[in-house]
């Protein structure tokens, strides 16, 4: 905070000068990019932290696995095996690139489309799919993976990440809480409140906004008149825009942000500028609202194609690597398909499970009645 201005020794010469001092004339920087769509680098490799075959192959492999999971789950939904699926198609670099920069003890708070991040955090894709089959509202234990449950109320979890970060700080940990959310979510009051709490508590939280240009049918211009990364600056912490289809850049920028946060610098905002290439969910029909040309334009910026081109051109990966990756992807798809097809429905009384940790007389009574009632259908004594 600036201290109250006292006397203005040398004032402006005109009121407009004084007002102009507040005008925000900063030029719009370009989104940070390391890999061009054609697969060439924007910087010499030695200037790119972590650059090397290990990282690049891992990024490619995990993007490929995420895309395969996405394709398979979309198909399973079409076949009626899942109630719904929100595809991540097009956002692989934003998710895999950022997730690879995290430490195992960092804690991720996803929205509902972060299947790629889930994969990197070691969450079994079958568990993710289980949620969208309608078998559970959760699906995994966040304590194991450091990957919180999906939150379907847009923006709500961004506060949870902030609170979690406050908790980490109180324990003296240098782990970071990471909130993934969308361009649409940025309009929710909860997200703004999270920025405020994070800023005034200097909480170790990374706000990772995947600006995929759409919130269902609404373009990002319905959510903001300012580039989203600037929102953070209005709350007093740094914001950066990265090419969200460039896994290498997302990785590097996320790493930079995490270093900043771990070093006690407080919250950081990364806007991954990307594109939702598919429908909002399998229930959605984007042809009703989206110009086909836009999709084409973004198809040319496909995150996988770009990294693949780079790996091939530089020889950092041989054809065998790609073949093996395809095989692994196919195995994953088979495993998920099989698991879904054989997934049992939960027990009827599951409705009553885990409403409270310590019981609740009414819930207990309702469960008893329900079990009695259920028995009455099988009970031969029933009149």
């Amino acid at each position: 905070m600036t201290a109250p201005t006292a006397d203005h020794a040398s004032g402006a010469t005109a009121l407009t000068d004084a007002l102009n001092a507040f005008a925000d004339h900063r030029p719009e920087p370009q989104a940070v990019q390391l890999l061009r769509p054609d697969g060439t680098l924007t910087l010499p490799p030695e200037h790119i932290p972590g650059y090397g075959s290990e990282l690049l192959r891992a990024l490619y492999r995990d993007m490929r696995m995420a895309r395969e999971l996405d394709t398979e789950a979309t198909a399973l939904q079409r076949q009626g095996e899942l109630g719904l699926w929100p595809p991540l198609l097009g956002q692989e670099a934003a998710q895999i690139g950022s997730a690879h920069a995290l430490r195992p003890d960092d804690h991720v708070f996803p929205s509902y489309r972060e299947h790629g991040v889930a994969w990197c955090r070691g969450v079994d894709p079958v568990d993710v799919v289980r949620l969208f089959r309608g078998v559970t509202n959760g699906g995994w234990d966040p304590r194991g993976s450091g990957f919180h449950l999906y939150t379907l109320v847009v923006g709500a979890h961004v506060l949870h990440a902030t609170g979690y970060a406050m908790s980490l700080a109180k324990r003296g940990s240098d782990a970071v809480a990471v909130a993934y959310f969308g361009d649409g979510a940025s309009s929710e009051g909860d997200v703004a409140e999270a920025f405020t709490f994070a800023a005034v508590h200097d909480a170790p939280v990374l706000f990772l906004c995947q600006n995929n240009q759409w919130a269902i049918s609404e373009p990002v211009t319905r959510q903001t008149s300012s580039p989203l990364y600037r929102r953070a600056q209005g709350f007093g912490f740094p914001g950066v825009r990265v090419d969200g289809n460039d896994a290498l850049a997302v990785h590097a920028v996320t790493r930079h942000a995490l270093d900043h946060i771990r070093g006690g610098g407080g919250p950081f905002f990364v806007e991954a500028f990307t594109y939702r290439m598919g429908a909002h969910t399998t229930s959605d029909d984007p042809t009703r609202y989206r110009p086909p040309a836009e999709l084409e334009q973004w198809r040319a910026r496909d995150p996988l194609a770009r990294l693949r081109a780079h790996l091939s051109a530089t020889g950092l990966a041989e054809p065998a690597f790609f073949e093996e990756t395809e095989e692994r992807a196919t195995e994953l798809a088979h495993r998920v398909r099989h698991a879904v097809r054989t997934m049992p429905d939960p027990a009827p009384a599951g409705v009553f499970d885990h409403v409270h940790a310590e019981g609740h007389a009414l819930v207990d009574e309702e469960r008893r009645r329900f079990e009695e009632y259920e028995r009455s259908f099988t009970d031969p004594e029933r009149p």
Partner: protein
Amino acid sequence: MPAQTMTLAKALNLSLRTALEDDPDVLVMGEDVGRLGGVFRVTDGLQKDFGEDRVMDSPLAESGIVGTAVGLALGGHRPVVEIQFDGFVFPAYDQIVTQLAKLHARSGGALRMPVVVRIPYGGGIGAVEHHSESPEALFAHVPGLKVVSPATPSDAYWMLGQAVRSDDPVIFFEPKRRYWDTGEVDPGATPPPLHRARVVRAGTDLTLAGYGPTVKLCREAAEAAAEDGRSVEVLDLRSLSPVDFDTVQASVERTHRLVVVHEAPVFFGAGAEIAARITTRCFYALEAPVLRVGGHHTPYPPARLEGHYLPDLDRVLAAVDDSLAY
């Protein structure tokens, strides 16, 4: 316009179209209501025909949607707001409860709040979390609001029109599992008052009262009970604030028994108020306690379990049996 058979969703669409045509101050706003026509297509085609100025895609912020609607109403507009799903009304709850519901009273009657908040609600469509809730009691308890829910395409058409024309805020609960049900809508008819309950089917042994999504279930239960020789009267409450207790009382005075059916949790639900008040009004007439069939006191379960959560024919008939056993 002649009478037509249409879906409940289409009836709502037609009603909005009529309202937009009849009154230039009427606005439609909400997430994805514009080009997409809403996730349930209730606003389909309206932006195309009435323009972006009257059919507005709002930012993703429910408090903002209702809060700006309050401001628009203060400016003389009549906003019809869509909340995309029942479970997403809560960020707007403060604006609804502390502002929308109270501004008329706060201003000593000087200001009016002709705002309709449309909420697709209820379960049974196999949806993910937060997409199947029935929060109507949380609004009916709040003075200053009116709360209604249509059960048929005809009511959908008429009641929405009446809500839009009302100078009071109306929380309009749309039974989403009935969006695709069809029925006749006659724009030339004379509709009943917005807050009047309706006898759907006459009967003598017991009264079954539902609203919104459960009216159809109550009708089916009455038909099934008829096969067992039981004459069940079915009421569609239509309005939850106010409740048309006169109609319910008149029915119970004839049948002496009442079962209320809703999807919301029973505990502190609409059935409680109806039971309490009808028991007072019909203390000597009742031959059984007012029974309630509804959701359990658990969070709405994942889709594969919702069949065990939602009232169904068996559970309603069991309650009918229980009541008749007194």
